[in-house]
């Protein structure tokens, strides 16, 4: 257990929580999706720090899965889900 790594993970978790405001407040669909992508990158960082802080090396594999699947969601979004209706800013 090392408290430094876990407190760093805590700070990144707080930045994730702040990023949620962007998901909630749009304005376009792409903005919401980008916030989800931010969650992916920050999630990788948190997992890496927890892997060191909790002494469980297995978490690196989960970080790998995170890195790949966050991109998958964005690609599906661009390819399939982002059509003209959700593309225009909603006011």
């Amino acid at each position, binding site marked *: 257990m090392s408290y*430094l*790594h876990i407190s*760093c993970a805590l*700070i*990144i978790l707080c*930045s*994730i929580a*702040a*990023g949620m*405001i*962007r998901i909630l407040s749009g304005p*376009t669909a*792409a*903005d919401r*999706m*980008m*916030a989800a*992508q*931010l969650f992916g*990158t*920050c999630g*990788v*960082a948190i997992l*890496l*720090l927890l892997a*060191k802080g909790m002494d469980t*090396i297995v978490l*690196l594999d989960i*970080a*790998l899965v995170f*890195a*790949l699947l*966050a*991109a998958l969601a*964005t*690609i599906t979004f*661009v390819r399939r889900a*982002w059509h*003209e209706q959700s*593309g225009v800013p909603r006011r």
Partner: protein
Amino acid sequence: MITLDNLGILCIVMGLPFFLTGTVGLLRFPDIYTRLHALTKADNVGLGLIILGLSLQADNLFTVAKLILIWILVLIASSASCHLVARSAMQKNIHPWVK
């Protein structure tokens, strides 16, 4: 070993502000494109520094290699998806914000 460990801690702590700026940029910047700037660049550098710090503290080379593999994958994934989002925003005629 102690110095290497401390250097690692320094790198990790230096990585944190980049993550925070990524979020601040995402919240403050005016349009999709500028937000993409904040997201891709700041987060990749932050993750890079954290991975550098953890590699300095790692106990074997396989862990280091895995960490670097993760960083490369994140780099590829984020720059590709950033380009895709920007490109389809351009094709949907979303005009960039101009001062």
